[in-house]
């Protein structure tokens, strides 16, 4: 083998070793998911979310056990669908999602999203990730993807917990939609899954808002508190009739539209408005977070 050839071979080897595969870039995402979902804090949040359907299910069971009358009565008060649970355990899924969506779910998202960048900055690990170099855009996308994965997982935890408790405590079977028609249990399950996805999608805007707040500060606690504070403020403002002109732009305004998936036929208007609004929030606050994070001096 000539010397030139030897040189070429070793160069080729050097490049083979040095040329990173495009797939390697997802190593950070995999690690981020793994790191987030094995964290005690994340598991505690998911545990709280899983407990909500259990509490609701037991409460309904005790309530109807006392009355022991058919149909139980007492409808109207409490979250949507609650009066139907005794007839069909599947309704516990809808009830639990309706009960957790206004506060528990977004609060959990607020904690995870708010802490995403700010928590790393607070611990000082952000500088080492960036020097690694994670790349600012890549790190931000990784964080957002993980928060979105958490939205989905958190919603599914509520839904699965509710389905399990519902199946254990109450009868299952065909169910009656809001429109009064009957659908089979299998289709009901499909609707439940669809509703879970709609609920998870409802949190996309909130997640982007939390991520943006997280890029503004280097205190994880401050970012979490601000995000959850914004959530509560928006929820309160959404109740004030005088503000009804701007309410359609609140990220939580169409959240309960998922109930429309229980109509026959499905009423899509508000669902589509909700998805559009979430996409808008994701675009606006996602861009803001990107603009902020890619130009920020990392001094912590």
């Amino acid at each position, binding site marked *: 083998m000539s010397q030139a050839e030897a*040189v070429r071979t*070793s*160069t080729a080897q*050097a490049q083979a*070793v*040095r040329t*990173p595969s495009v797939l*390697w*870039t997802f*190593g*950070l995402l*995999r*690690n981020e998911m793994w*790191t987030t979902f094995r*964290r*005690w804090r994340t598991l505690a949040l998911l545990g709280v979310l899983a407990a909500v359907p259990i509490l609701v299910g037991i409460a309904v069971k005790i309530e109807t056990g006392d009355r022991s009358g058919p149909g139980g009565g007492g409808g109207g008060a409490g979250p949507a669908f609650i009066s139907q649970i005794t007839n069909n355990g599947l309704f516990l899924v809808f009830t639990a999602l309706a009960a957790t969506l206004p506060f528990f779910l977004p609060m959990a998202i607020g904690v995870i999203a708010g802490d995403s960048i700010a928590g790393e900055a607070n*611990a*000082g*690990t952000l*500088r*080492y*990730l*960036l*020097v*690694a*170099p*994670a*790349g600012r855009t*890549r*790190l931000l996308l990784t964080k957002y993807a993980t928060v979105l994965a958490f939205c989905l997982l958190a919603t599914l935890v509520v839904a699965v917990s509710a389905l399990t408790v519902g199946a254990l405590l109450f009868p299952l079977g065909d169910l009656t939609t809001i429109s009064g028609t009957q659908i089979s249990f299998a289709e009901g399950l499909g609707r439940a899954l669809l509703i879970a996805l709609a609920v998870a999608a409802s949190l996309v805007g909130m997640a982007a808002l939390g991520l943006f707040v997280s890029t503004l500060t280097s205190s994880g606690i401050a970012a979490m508190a601000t995000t959850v504070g914004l959530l509560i403020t928006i929820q309160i403002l959404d109740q004030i009739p005088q503000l009804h002109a701007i309410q359609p732009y609140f990220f939580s305004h169409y959240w309960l539209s998922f109930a429309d998936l229980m109509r026959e036929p499905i009423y899509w208007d508000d669902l589509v408005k909700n998805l559009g609004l979430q996409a808008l929030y994701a675009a606006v606050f996602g861009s803001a977070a990107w603009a902020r994070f890619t*130009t920020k*001096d*990392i*001094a912590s």
Partner: protein
Amino acid sequence: MSETPATEPEPGQQSAGDGVIVTRALTKRYRGGQLAVDGLDLAVPAGSVFGFLGPNGSGKTTTIRMLMGLIEPTSGSARVLGRPMPRSARAVLPHVGALIEGPALYGFLSGRDNLLRYDAADPTADPRTRRTRVAAALDRVGLAAAAGKKAKAYSLGMKQRLGLAAALLQPRRLLVLDEPTNGLDPQGMREIRSLIRELASDGTTVFLSSHLLDEIEQVCTHAAVMAQGRLITQGPVADLAAGTRGRLVVTTPDPADTARILKEQGAADVVIAEDRVSAEPPQDRDLAEVNAALVTAGVRVRGFGVERASLEDAFVALTGEGFDVAG
């Protein structure tokens, strides 16, 4: 790597005379108006162990952060491995291992998982070799036995070692180590110093910031001194210390005779302090001859030697003040 054709724009492939780190009038003014780094012209030669000295608040860390692309300079430019920073951060930083302002770890992860995470953050790190490289890095800093322990249970010295291990996950061309022996016991300090020498002998350029002058003297070939955001001096350590020459010190029960003979031999600035006589060594005489002259004259000599000028003397001579001045 040396076979890589010159046409390849590889970071680290510099034309002759180019330093591993070169800054031109690098300046950072923080939003409050405070001038942290003021017109810094730094040149770190390839293969050197470069000591970066200065009191707290002199702008060392700000400089390092600019070099690592963490903060944007207000004006001026910085090139690392021949490429502009922070623009080329993604090409340059995989070749740079850094320990900045102490280690930062995920307390809820084990030492090994911390390194796996930092390695995963580097898109040029091969996931197939990740576990072996992490194990090798842990071994290198003496943490193999504590690899499975949660990082929050680590002592400060162990955290420091883990931070160093993170900088050694890949073969690097440049190591930037900010106070690497902080929190280590004397044994740990020795280990880290020998590690630095070992890395330097492999051809890695080491950029070492420290406030411990003797540490810099022990391991560094070159040094730069900063004070209040400005570069006071830089160059080979030998040249810096040469600015203030060493003194000849004789310990003897006959100080008066010693002083007379030293003067005869051409020594200047003779100072007697009890049984210690010190002087500027004569320019043109072998010190062995000076010693022989003392003995021939019947002077009893207990000790004879040259006290080398320390970098601290050089620093004091340069700044006219003590080293531990908070800027």
